[in-house]
């Protein structure tokens, strides 16, 4: 039997809200770790030097080729066997972050490769060093290409963060399960959890829209003129018919 009162009660439960906040914090932290690792790995994979390319390729291959759930369990319950003891939060951050980095490396690399070669050459020709060329000329242009897939990755990560419940991190899913075990309102409480995840991803997609518009501002005006031209074309077609 569906119980509205319970649903409405748990929807502002501080216990679950805190869980959602922890999920968000975990996702943001893992994303930041992933961005740093992904950027480094992407640069290494594009290097002319084999000894830089190989380890980065190995990293991407390993972490994209195994399930993140397995990675989390290995880090939290497997590594202590080798004398490496990490706390729950550290394990989750590292596990999700390192895994995310492997995916982000590929996204960042494809974005940089999509920037025309002439942009690199023009930057080099006015005397920019390699790092400056990347920072001032290439990355800002790559960003426009990268932001949509990067945003999707973060959307995915907010949901994947629920896997940390398996290593007993008290994020949203774990707290939901714990609450269900004492309250028995399975459907109501899980729907509250689903609702929270939906709120997180929805708010993020709005933010992502802003970011995309910001990164595309140099081409945006071009697009408006194109739209005006299209409108004019339609108008003249209608008038002439």
């Amino acid at each position, binding site marked *: 039997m569906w119980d509205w009162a319970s649903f409405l009660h748990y929807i502002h439960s501080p216990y679950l809200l805190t869980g959602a906040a922890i999920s968000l914090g975990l996702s943001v932290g893992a994303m930041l770790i992933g961005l740093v690792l992904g950027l480094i790995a992407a640069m290494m994979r594009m290097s002319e030097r084999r000894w830089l390319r190989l380890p980065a390729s190995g990293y991407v291959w390993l972490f994209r080729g195994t399930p993140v759930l397995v990675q989390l369990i290995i880090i939290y319950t497997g590594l202590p066997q080798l004398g490496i003891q990490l706390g729950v939060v550290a394990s989750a951050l590292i596990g999700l972050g390192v895994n995310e980095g492997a995916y982000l490396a590929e996204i960042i690399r494809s974005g940089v490769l999509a920037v*025309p070669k*002439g*942009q690199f*050459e*023009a*930057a*080099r*020709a*006015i*005397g*920019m*060093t*390699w790092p*400056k060329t990347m920072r*001032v*000329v290439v990355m*800002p*242009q790559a960003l*426009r290409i990268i932001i949509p897939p990067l945003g999707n990755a973060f959307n995915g990560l907010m949901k994947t963060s629920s896997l940390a419940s398996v290593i007993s991190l008290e994020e949203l899913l774990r707290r939901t399960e714990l609450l269900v075990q004492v309250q028995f309102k399975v459907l109501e409480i899980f729907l509250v959890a689903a609702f929270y995840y939906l709120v997180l991803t929805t708010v993020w997609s709005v933010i992502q829209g802003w970011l995309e518009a910001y990164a595309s501002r*140099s*081409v945006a*005006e*071009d697009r408006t*003129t194109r739209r005006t031209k299209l409108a004019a074309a339609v108008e003249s077609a209608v008038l002439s018919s």
Partner: protein
Amino acid sequence: MTQGTEDKRVAVVDARGVHKYFGQNHVLKGVDLTVYKGEVVVIIGPSGGGKSTFLRTINHLDRPDSGEVCINGTALGVPPKGSRRATLSDAGLSRQRRQVGMVFQQFNLFSHMTALENVMCGPVQVLKTPRTVALVDAKRLLALVGLADKEASYPAQLSGGQQQRVAIARALAMHPAVMLFDEPTSALDPEMVGEVLKVMLDLSEQGMTMVVVTHEVQFARKAADRILFMEEGRIIEEGRPEELMGNPRNERTRSFLRMVMGEA
């Protein structure tokens, strides 16, 4: 020209025995060129003859496999004496490149920056010129190429001819010792070629040292102090415009000129 007058002139570009391979393909087979201060050298010749590649070795955008390029007496890409490196560091070579401005066939304006930002970018990022100083200079240069009213436009909003003129202003903003032009009008619609050539002609009259790879024979005739004919990775013939165009000695030069003049 006698040896005595040559010695008094300042060599801005001095390329010696430049060889370049792309894989098995021997693109440059020992090219020598000295460009003196204020001189305009135009390189003509059939496509695939190595003109653009040679131009790109002058600022080491393509490093020569052998031979040497000196800019104002300093050999590019050569580490200082006593250094253990085989080649100069990236930072060192970048520093040397500041002296050489380059204009590309495809303009290559930074597409995420406005015209003004494109021109200011080099001085601010590379030379560490204060923004206020760079801004004044960039506005002056945009006015020089006739685009004072386009400073807030992004490259995508400009025509090809306008983009190329911004690109010229961007290169000039570094106050280079020499300007390289790599087929600057080849990617333009015919009606825009004139506006770009006019800017280049103005520059040459103001005494800018220039090396220009182009198919525009009329420009070569008007602006060049010297024309080189290049084919199969070698300079086949060189001379003053009236000599080389009026009375080419080499049969290959003659037939090439007949072909391009016929087209025009």
